[in-house]
């Protein structure tokens, strides 16, 4: 068979062969025609206008609202939000009026979770501590989205030297672990002496933006050469406007997913810093601070440490679950076949 080598015409063009006439079989082939009623012809390529219009977001929403993961996480997040905004609706005991006479007392009527060593109501402190933790998480995420999003979008869209500079800058920050960088930063006198929610947010944003920048950059690169972007340029849209109007909206899905997951990790980071005594000042009620002050007593009164830790875990978990649910709904590639 090997003698039957056909020269590769990719490489050496052969003479133009004669016209082909098709194959005629020596067998008898029956000519079958299906009855027309069975498969009625329909118009070529007609638009189906029966179903309601569905944008990508609407489609994602339709998928999401059936997912238990999404429903549970959204309900939990809503609950946490309401608690953060109106803590007085959930606790009528002032968390700051502590009576040493109640020190380390157990649960009793009106004080379902008992008292801390300082005699403060644990339940009320957990409820009131929500706001600071959530604020740090929320504002850090917003800051990270703005800085990381802008940096990533510009780097990905324009490429060239802008990309080189911004991407390397991001890598420098990315190389420093979030917590380690924040610890070092918070030790600096300027931060140590002005500790508040905002300094913690600032420090976390400084070390948190490269992740969003990377995701944004990747998504933007994927979309910047799409035909619809070229088409809009050919319509006369400026390069920058094409970025804002077409590229960024199409790059949002992965950014939203990562943002919701990292919101959880920022809350953990705040709690860690506060636990180490360099995050929020003790005057601000937060789960991290409460865990820190309960820590010496972990053997004889573990409940005091347990409750803020549970609140923290549930909040973080629900944001991570939300991120997972969003990933499934917004990223068609990850969908199960």
């Amino acid at each position, binding site marked *: 068979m090997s003698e039957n080598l056909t020269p590769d015409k990719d490489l050496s063009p052969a003479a133009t062969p004669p016209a082909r006439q098709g*194959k005629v079989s020596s067998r*008898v082939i029956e000519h079958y025609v299906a009855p027309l009623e069975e498969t009625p012809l329909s118009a070529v390529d007609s638009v189906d206008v029966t179903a309601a219009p569905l944008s990508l977001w609407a489609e994602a929403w339709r998928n999401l609202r059936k997912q238990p993961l999404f429903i549970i996480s959204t309900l939990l997040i809503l609950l946490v939000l309401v608690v953060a905004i109106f803590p007085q609706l959930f606790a009528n005991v002032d968390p700051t009026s502590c009576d040493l006479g109640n020190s380390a007392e157990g649960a009793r009527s009106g004080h379902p979770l008992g008292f801390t060593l300082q005699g403060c109501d644990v339940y009320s402190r957990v409820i009131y501590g929500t706001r600071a933790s959530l604020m740090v998480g929320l504002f850090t995420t917003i800051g990270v989205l703005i800085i990381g999003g802008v940096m990533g979008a510009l780097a990905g869209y324009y490429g060239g030297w802008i990309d080189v500079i911004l991407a390397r800058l991001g890598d420098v920050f990315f190389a420093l672990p979030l917590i380690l960088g924040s610890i070092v930063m918070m030790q600096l006198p300027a931060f140590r002496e002005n500790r508040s929610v905002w300094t913690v947010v600032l420090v976390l944003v400084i070390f948190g933006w490269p992740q969003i920048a990377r995701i944004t950059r990747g998504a933007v690169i994927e979309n910047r050469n799409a035909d619809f972007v070229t088409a809009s340029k050919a319509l006369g849209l400026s390069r920058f406007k094409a970025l804002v109007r077409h590229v960024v909206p199409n790059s949002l899905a992965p950014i939203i997913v990562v943002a919701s997951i990292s919101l959880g990790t920022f809350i953990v980071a705040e709690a860690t810093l506060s636990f180490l005594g360099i995050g929020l000042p003790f005057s601000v009620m937060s789960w991290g601070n409460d865990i820190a002050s309960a820590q010496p007593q972990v053997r004889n009164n573990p409940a005091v440490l347990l409750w803020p830790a549970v609140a923290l875990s549930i909040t973080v978990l629900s944001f991570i679950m939300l991120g997972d649910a969003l990933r499934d709904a917004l990223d068609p590639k990850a969908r199960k076949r």
Partner: protein
Amino acid sequence: MSNYEKDMSVNNPAKKTDETPLLEIRDLAITFETANGPVNAVRSAHLTIMPGETVAIVGESGSGKSTTALAAIGLLPSNGRVSGGQIFFDGEDIAHAGEKRMVELRGNSIGMVPQDPMSNLNPVWKIGFQVKETLKANGLAGSNHKERVAEVLTNAGLPDAALRAKQYPHEFSGGMRQRALIAIGLACSPRLLIADEPTSALDVTVQRQILDHLDTMTTELGTAVLLITHDLGLAAERAEKLVVMYKGQVVESGAALEILRNPQHPYTQRLINAAPSLSSRRLQSQKVKDALAGAVAELDEPVEAGYTPSPVPAKSGLPSLRKDAEPGRAQAGDTILEIKNLTKVFKLRGALGKTTDFKAVDDVNITVPRGTTMAIVGESGSGKSTVAQMTLSLLAPTEGSILFDGVEVNTLKGKALFDFRRRVQPIFQDPYGSLDPMFNIYRTIEEPLKIHKIGNAKSREKKVRELLDQVSMPAATMSRFPNELSGGQRQRIAVARALALNPDVIICDEAVSALDVLVQAQVLNLLNELQEELGLTYLFITHDLAVVRQIADHVTVMQSGRVVEASSTDEVFNNPQQRYTQDLLSAIPGATLLV
């Protein structure tokens, strides 16, 4: 095994009455479980393949042709199952055969050549390894597997097979990859080869070589072939028997040439009428058709092939329907676009930061008369799309000039460029990429009006309605999103968007290449009607000469960045001067079957 086949089919063709079919599909039904409930992808399909025979399944995307073939080799997706009927392979019902039996059959009894040569070879393994894998899986590797691999690759038409076997897929061109895949498919001399659109991703001339080669090899081995294709011309040319599928059903089957010449089912008739490779004339708008019919009746003399060599005289006699034609607009016939000595050099990054020059476009001259269609034809890498990009002023030429209505395009800046954008619009190839998935259809078509600050919200809505009507889409489409529309519908929306600014020139970059035949014919007809109605000029970039004949008045043939032939469409088709053009023409599948 194959020797037995040969005896049966090649040496004893007369002995046919008592043959058992190699593959017989009876009343096959395939159901897919989807989120929206079960979908019957295939219903009561039947087909018979005799040993050594080539049978082609033809149909549009979604007609169930690939699904039927996948069922025969037991490779349906996990949510699909055979819900009725039988599949007999050599007398054995394999419709519900276990995985173990199917593994035995695959490779040495039923081979497969997949569709996309770019993604069906594993990029991390050498070609030789991937061939060896197939041989090993079927216990054919033996001790001298290196020689066997080389032999298999040589048979598939790859020269220097021993060396080639050591290369990775990315070092192969598309045609070579497809040869490698054919080598793998035929490595174990199967009795049936399923070829699922084996050449759809390749240039026509390469497609022809590959199919010729596949023909030779399967005839030699006595292998029966189940060819799946959307191209009726190709199917009729390569197969003894055609099976036409539509909406999951077999609507017509029989001898290939018989079906082609005497189609019975209306769907088959529709397909044959629409197939560009089988047509031999330019499309005509309804208006010109009527005018010609009138002329014919008056003069009582036939118009040759219904085609007017220069469409301008035929059209100039008709009143222009263009309502908003500017008074200063020149009459049809003058030159609207003139490309002179156009050259584009790309710098390719080589090793160690060195750059090498690559001339993508080399000294190209094209003149496009107003109101006509100029086609630029060439294979991938011929530089035709680069010319389009430069004409759209999206890419700066290295040398040469592009004159649009007498004005140099490349030096345009600011306001002048903005105005130029209004008058020259593109339509791109990929219907899935050219519309922003986040914009609904209304916003998509309104965007150009908004960018150019034309009218107010109310007048823009009116205009969008008009445009949708012009591309024969219902007004209800406005609130829909691109992901709800089919490829052809999206392409029509892209046409509407391009028309929004009343352009003079539309540059179609492979605008119909990704569409099914019928849909393609629909879009081509639309483009043609619009040209007549609005006096549009098209620069039509395509690799498909068959389409050129339907839409173009003039043709420029490009090869590796150079113009090799430029003339009127008739001239090029009837009397091609260059070898390259002749090759391209003869590679159109089925071109000679109906004449």
